[in-house]
């Protein structure tokens, strides 16, 4: 049996649902670009790239508002039930995850743009390399989660959910920051700043994982009376 957002007797309902779905995927594509650009801006200390990230942030927010409004309209006008209801709720949540992932990307851009004597620390070569590595894995996770979301594929979503590479990379990066700070007290502040950046990248992975769990919610088996609105085996990180 396949799950499809289409096939309603009222064909306009198909259009409403798939438009929501497509818009969320398109927003996701933009978020991946944001993450990549923000990582480049940070690792290359590139103010123009950071400015572009902030400019595009407005577009992400616009997507967020538009999709939320469209989801509200679908609920009000179509009164979706069962898988359709789960899909509308989950799409809305996926969009929130994407928006938050973009917010994390924005933090990187802001770090570059707030480069003053007291705030913003240009990363050294090692930190820049670590940011690029974490950013690459985080963007990969968002992409994989979005592909699972696009195909409504719970198997692909489960792979993202169980992916621990980013967590390991983050833990290793943190260890190196701590070591550096311990070796040279003058580097404590820059190490803390860099740790916040790594934390942002790690959180992008968390948002990808949450997106994957929302895919499982759309297609999965769950008992709403026992677990609220989420699959029994997961708990969404915030």
């Amino acid at each position, binding site marked *: *049996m*396949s*799950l*499809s*957002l*289409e*096939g*309603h*007797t*009222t064909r306009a*309902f198909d259009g409403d*649902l*798939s438009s929501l*779905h*497509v*818009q969320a*995927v*398109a927003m*996701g*594509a*933009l978020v*991946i*670009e944001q993450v990549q650009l923000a990582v480049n801006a940070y690792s290359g200390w590139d103010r123009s790239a950071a400015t572009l990230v902030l400019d595009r942030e407005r577009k992400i927010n616009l997507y967020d508002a538009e999709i939320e409004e469209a989801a509200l309209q679908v609920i009000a006008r179509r*009164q*979706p*039930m*069962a*898988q*359709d*209801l*789960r899909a509308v709720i989950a799409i809305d949540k996926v969009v929130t995850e994407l928006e938050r992932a973009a917010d994390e990307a924005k933090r990187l851009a802001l770090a570059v743009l707030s480069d003053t004597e007291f705030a913003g620390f240009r990363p050294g070569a090692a930190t820049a390399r670590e940011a690029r590595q974490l950013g690459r894995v985080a963007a990969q996770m968002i*992409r994989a989660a*979005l*592909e699972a979301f*696009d*195909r*409504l*594929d*719970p*198997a*692909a979503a489960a792979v993202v959910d169980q992916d621990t590479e980013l967590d390991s990379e983050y833990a290793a990066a943190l260890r190196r920051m701590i070591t550096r700070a311990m070796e040279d007290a003058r580097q404590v502040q820059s190490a803390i700043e860099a740790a916040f950046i790594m934390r942002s990248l790690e959180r992008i992975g968390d948002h990808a994982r949450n997106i994957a769990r929302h895919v499982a919610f759309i*297609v*999965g*088996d*769950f*008992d*709403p*009376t026992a677990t609220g609105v989420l699959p029994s085996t997961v708990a969404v990180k915030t």
Partner: protein
Amino acid sequence: MEAAQVERAGLNLKPSSRMPEDAAVERPVEVGKTVGNIAVDDPIFSCRDVDVFYGAKHAIKKVGIDVARSQVLAMIGPSGCGKSTFLRCLNRMNDTIEGARVEGSILLDGKDIHDRKQDVVQLRARVGMVFQKPNPFPKSIYENVAYGPRIHGLAGDRVELDEIVHHSLKRAGLWEEVKDRLQQPGTSLSGGQQQRLCIARTIAVNPEVILMDEPCSALDPIATARIEDLMEELRQSYAIVIVTHSMQQAARVSQRTAYFHLGDLIEVGETDRIFTNPRHKLTEDYITGRFG
């Protein structure tokens, strides 16, 4: 436009709205075996292997389901699926249809309603019915409610009868609107008021179960809301079985929902689950508007 944006982003994400054949949660597609738990603890009605034939037509096929006390059971399904036919089995209304034959076991409080000793008039007092169109008797508001208790001998004198009429109209949420015009014809009331008068008439004879066959389909949204509110109140004292074409109504008023399809009971379960995550594909298709 969005698809183009995705492509431009070079991410190779092609929005599709579809998923691989083998990845979705499997839902049964076969009919003939009801999905979900048909039994409840201490049921008021217990029906097993109920078949109904209209001449050669097999309208209900081996349906088994319990009706719980103090609950609303909603029966949904497309036209001709047998939900009203099944409802009418519960107080033997099908007896009045020529050529109709009911087989199987229907126990009310553990006793077979088809037992030879069963008085059908008594049965219909215990199992009252409210129809799609309000059908007050062409009598006064008072007489509409007093008629049942009078023929069943439930009131010893006029004072007791007045009390029953007052109590029934009050429970039906109609008393305040009609207390000053009890002698006016029942047909002078609005549609929603007439339907509540019919409910008052039903509860005047102390039923245990109230059957409702699309009780709001002829009413406006405000009158519908009042009836739904009333159902929530009445279910504290009576079991209610409602047939409705409005899935939103079924979701709002019931605690259990049963889905019928071409004479088969496809699925029964807690309303909370049926409308968020039904188990059977036919149920899913029907409630999401993909039927047929």
